[in-house]
């Protein structure tokens, strides 16, 4: 479980860093299949929360998940579960915003949402399967 979480969280850090760099200044992430969904999403007021690029929250979240995956014991299991639960909930909210408020879908955001869903699943299995048991 920890190996899978480490791999997915590392990938997530990369994706979030790419989104943050691409969205800095006046740019926006490039949609691989064409279209301008990423530009629309990146230019919307929802791309920033309290003045901070949402992708920055993503980087912090994935780094915490990476740390939780690398550490052993119940504290790490609980931290991984809690952070991935928050990340998953936030991804559900952002996907709703994309579909119904901005009315544009950015593939990079979808990729991040999928990674966060996988991390939530892995951390939930780790938590339920091993909580209270020796590291």
């Amino acid at each position, binding site marked *: 479980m920890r190996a899978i979480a480490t791999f997915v969280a590392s990938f997530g850090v990369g994706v979030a860093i790419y989104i943050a760099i691409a969205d800095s200044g*006046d740019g926006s992430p490039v949609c691989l299949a064409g279209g*301008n*969904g990423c*530009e*629309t999403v990146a*230019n*919307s*007021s*929802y791309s920033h929360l309290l003045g901070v690029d949402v992708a920055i929250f993503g980087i912090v979240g994935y780094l915490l998940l990476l740390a939780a995956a690398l550490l052993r014991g*119940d504290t790490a*299991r*609980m931290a991984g*579960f*809690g952070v991935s*639960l*928050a990340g*998953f*909930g936030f991804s*559900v*909210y952002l996907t*709703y*915003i994309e579909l*119904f*408020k*901005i*009315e*544009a879908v950015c593939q990079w955001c979808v990729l991040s949402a999928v990674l966060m869903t996988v991390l939530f699943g892995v951390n939930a299995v780790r*938590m*339920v399967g091993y*909580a*209270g*048991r020796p590291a």
Partner: protein
Amino acid sequence: MSGDEARRKRLLQVASAAVFLAIVAVAVLIVLESGGSGGDTNLEDAGAITGQLEGIPQKGLELGRPEAKVTLVEFGDLQCPVCKGFSEEIVPEVIDSKVRSGEARIEFRNYTIISQESIPAGAAAIAAGRQGRGWDYLELFYRNQGVEASGYVTDEFMTAIARGAGVPDIARWNRDRKSAAILGEVEAQTAEAEKLGLTGTPSFAVEGPATSGLETLGTPSSAGAIEEAIEAAQGRG
């Protein structure tokens, strides 16, 4: 029950409570977002506007091919709720039938009649037009319009509209919209509307091979009436 089992049970209870709280938090956030009331900085319909204008050339506040024989001019006030209605119900039909085909181009000019706030709003539209996003700005402003003269036309609101409209250089847009040249342009457009004898917004005017200069149409009641005026200006009416 062993100590480990008790600890495991407690941890799972905490995890269950966290899941419950997360579900409630996401549900509350979505319910709050679904009640958008306009005039705020959480923009409605940016994607729909991008689709509506996609592939049509823009220059300043002109939308359509430069070689189009007929020019339809809309004199509007960005705070005017009737203009918002036209922008959502009538103008898109004209864009699809006459502008996209290259028969006509449509030009927005400011006729600021609601309140002083209409002047910076109009200047911001012209500044967005200098970066090729004038019509995106106009349409997005209308879709997110607040209550007229209520003070919602703040720098923050206009910046959110500009970002949503895809204005590439926000710093330049900020300089431009406050410049004497652009503010003067808003005033000149309003003066032109008054000179034409227009009495309200939106008012339309048309110019083409079969008209003698810019001929006013008043406020047509339907997209069909505007389309007929365009055809008449082409000499096909």
